């Protein structure tokens, strides 16, 4: 890992890169991006290249996931797969019981080769009912969700101002969006980002 990081760092800084010029993208320009988004899946239908559910078991580098429609998914984690659990984490952070979303490529044998995996990620909107020690009490569709501030990780974004780790300008009774990591089988969430409209 260390040598890979050194290699990446020297590729970036040694080359004096600033932006990747449009011409340098060559055949991987917007046309290719459009081709990727060409309607291969019927709108409204389940996307075969996406999986949602809870991890039932983990064997080697494969996650066995039970979807909410009672379908099992086999999700293969490869070298290039990103794993998110309140931020980028290594593969051993995945645990049975974690909620999961994964996007990748569905192989002919039905296994999903994952490009991105997000564990326990939630994006909930609601009113702040109360603020107690490092915790926002959020009213989400009538349900109370306790949203915990995580030192060194949680940030607040107020429109397009630079995000701040100081959440103290949030007010009781205001509406917010909270992107965070659900604590399985609880009504509690660890906050990654609070989006505040003002």
């Amino acid at each position, binding site marked *: 890992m260390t040598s890979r990081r050194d290699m990446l760092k020297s590729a970036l800084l040694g080359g004096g890169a600033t932006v990747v010029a449009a011409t340098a993208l060559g055949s991987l320009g917007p046309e290719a991006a459009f081709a990727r988004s060409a309607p291969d899946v019927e709108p409204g239908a389940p996307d075969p290249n*996406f999986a949602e559910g809870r991890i039932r078991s983990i064997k080697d580098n494969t996650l066995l996931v039970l979807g*909410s429609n009672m379908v099992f998914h086999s999700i293969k984690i490869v070298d290039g797969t990103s794993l*998110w659990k309140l931020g980028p984490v290594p593969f051993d952070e995945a645990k049975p019981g974690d909620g999961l*979303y994964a996007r990748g490529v569905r192989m002919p044998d039905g296994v999903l080769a994952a490009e991105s995996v997000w564990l326990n990620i939630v994006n909930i909107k609601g009113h702040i009912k109360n603020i107690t020690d490092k915790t926002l009490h959020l009213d989400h569709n009538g349900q109370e*969700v306790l949203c915990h501030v995580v030192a060194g990780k949680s940030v607040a974004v107020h429109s397009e101002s630079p995000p701040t780790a100081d959440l103290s300008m949030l007010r009781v009774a205001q*509406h917010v969006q909270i992107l965070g990591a659900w604590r399985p089988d609880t009504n509690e969430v660890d906050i990654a980002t609070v989006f505040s409209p003002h």
Partner: protein
Amino acid sequence: MARTQPPDTPIDLYAAVRGEVSWFCCGTAWGPCSTTGKGACGTCNSGSLQHAWPNTSDACWAITHPDTCGFNLSRRTCGFQHRTTNLCSGVSVVTSIADCGPQTDLFCGERSCCGSTCATDRIIDLTPAAYSKIASLSTGLRPCSIDTA
């Protein structure tokens, strides 16, 4: 003074509109998704290419009130298809309406930018399957362009 029909010409009637796109979960899924249930159309699933629209009915408009932010959107009902394009990357996804949302009037004036390209106000909410096609779920909120598919 509850109006049931927006009086002004909807901004999406003749051209694509720019706004913010976020995502939400629905269906009988894990976490806090159960309170959303199957959505206003009764068909919403986090794994399907679907979205929430602020003007699917009078009752929906009474909740989202985009006119509070100074604009109106066309009445589109369950199953109607929109194309949402991420302004950063140009990648787009076509989805069909499965729920009422987002709560546009509670986030009036909020801005999201990619580089120097910015958009204001929440116009559309996608399911995780749809949002992850055009942006990473951990971004939470992105500027986008919406037109009819």
